[in-house]
């Protein structure tokens, strides 16, 4: 029972962070807090992917660099592919955050506020 929880702690942390980020995106009114929630959500997914790279029984793998030592002594190394996928996904997340922040800047210039409730109230009066 305890191993089921403690041995997979990185997956549990990833899930909890996904839920925290998701909650922030939905429930927070301030637009910047929504973007922070999006960033937490995406970072937690990266954590999930990197945890997937090291599936296997002990001993835990080492860095996947081809060298004489690893090949001759037969060390276990982690799977480098999820790390590569995460690099691509980080670029996507950075681009999304940049577009989102650009939108928030323009909204601040337009409405003078970044609280969603106030923006809706301004629009309703117009």
């Amino acid at each position, binding site marked *: 029972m305890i191993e089921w929880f403690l041995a997979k702690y990185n997956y549990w942390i990833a899930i909890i962070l996904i839920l925290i980020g998701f909650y922030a995106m939905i429930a927070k009114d301030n637009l910047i807090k929504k973007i922070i929630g999006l960033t937490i959500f995406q970072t937690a*997914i990266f954590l999930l992917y990197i945890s997937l790279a090291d599936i296997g029984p002990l001993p835990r793998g080492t860095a996947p660099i081809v060298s004489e030592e690893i090949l001759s002594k037969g060390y276990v190394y982690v799977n480098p592919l999820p790390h590569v996928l995460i690099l691509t996904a980080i670029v996507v997340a950075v681009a999304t955050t940049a577009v989102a922040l650009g939108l928030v800047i323009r909204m601040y210039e337009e409405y003078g506020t970044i609280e969603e409730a106030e923006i809706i109230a301004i629009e309703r009066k117009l």
Partner: protein
Amino acid sequence: MAGIVEQLPVLIIAISLVSAFTILVAGWVNKKACWFISLGTIFIQLIMAIAILNHVLTVGNIYYWLGGWMPPWGIEYVMDALNGYILVVLLFLSLVCVMYSRRNVEHELPDKIVSFYVVYQLLVTGLCGVTVTGDIFNMYVFVEIFSLAAYALIASRGGISLKASFVYLVMGSIGACFVLIGIGLVYAVTGSLNMHDISILLPQFYGNRAVQLAYALIVVGLSIKMALFPLHTWLPDAHSFAPSEISAMLSGIIIEVSTYALIRISFSVFTLDFLRLVPIFDIISWLAAFAIIYGSVLAIAQINLKRMLAYSSVSQMGYIMLAVGLSLSTKHVLWGGLTPALMHILNHALMKGCLFMVAGAFIYKAELWNITDLRGLGRKMPYTCAAFTLAAISMIGVPPSVGFVTKIYLIFAVVEAGNFIFMAVILLSTLLNLVYFWRVIETMYMKVGEAGPHHEYAKPVKIDEIPLTMLIPVLLLGVLCIVMGIIWLTEIPIIGAVPIMDTVNKLFEIGRYTVLP
């Protein structure tokens, strides 16, 4: 020439990317050149897409290995009949929209012309990329490319379109992140990212909860992107406040490409055996039926013309997903399998593209947003209103237009599947479509009075016909609504329309090629 067709899938993407940066550089020199470069690029891409489709139908599938690396270690671009068809539809609608956008962008966004065409070309790149790729992570990256371009283009008008784009950004990013988790779980179980490879490795894991969770996440994530009820709430605001050609692209092709991504992942990655195990397609059919009624009812309540068309899009996505949900249960040669769904992707692009562009024409000429302001426009803008009427009667489903073809094939498919509640839903929605489209046609042609808002301070508006570069796309789409309907009905093999659907059904072994265990 057989050699060059093999390279065309990647050439379409490469030309588009290079052209986006060429537009940026050329825009510093001469702003007027941007439209010509974009138009020329999309036209060349359309020629290439037709060449690819021709090759796929006559010779066979195209497999392109990026960088020469063999799959499953390298990324592979696979072109089969489903891909080729969606690519041609996508590029045709993009070409028509960019032709329309010349005058509209000069009018609505006069200081952002260069940026508009750069981001538009990147949007087309992303859409083409989703269509040609054969690797699921590559598909996620291209989905994000076109989504980001769409967020930027919707927000380009400023004002309330910023908030609409922000809501779309938050919801679209949630959807994409769900898809990313799903892809990660599939990779964890099978160890491969190539679609064909996963379809071979996955069957032994169908009972694994991670695989089922991955499929659920991918379905929900792509449903947010394609505005399936009840995840459609970003759609009305985004469509109403975007520039008109972007509304036409959104409704006509962006949400359809997300549907294509769902079809591709459901049928090529998680193959038919998985879809028969889990009753996901029944759930999708019921959600789609609710979407059809919900969209139609809410469209009746709208005063803003573009918002009414946006709710109508929610309803039409319900048609496509109902056709997808029924695709496993139908076996007829004409309406079995994926045929009604793919048919409606083209038909909806034609109809909704025309309707949004006409709504944009009214806004371009005299800032007329509401339906009640359109009195008497039938006399002042005769060709535009004629195109609107053709597209509107096509949406209602008058024979022999494309809307009628979709509805009749869908009704036959529902009858064959045996679920008569869906037939009542489709007929009821036809009646509701008639209510809200006829209101617009009546206001345009039969109401007396002058166009424009009706209060004491209103000045009379001077309206004449829209310029030619905006009129040709509108009329082309309007006329194609009827002509394409005749082609579908008589099954003329010149365009190869019905053989495409037949090849897709044969590829996935659905429809009349169903092989029951």
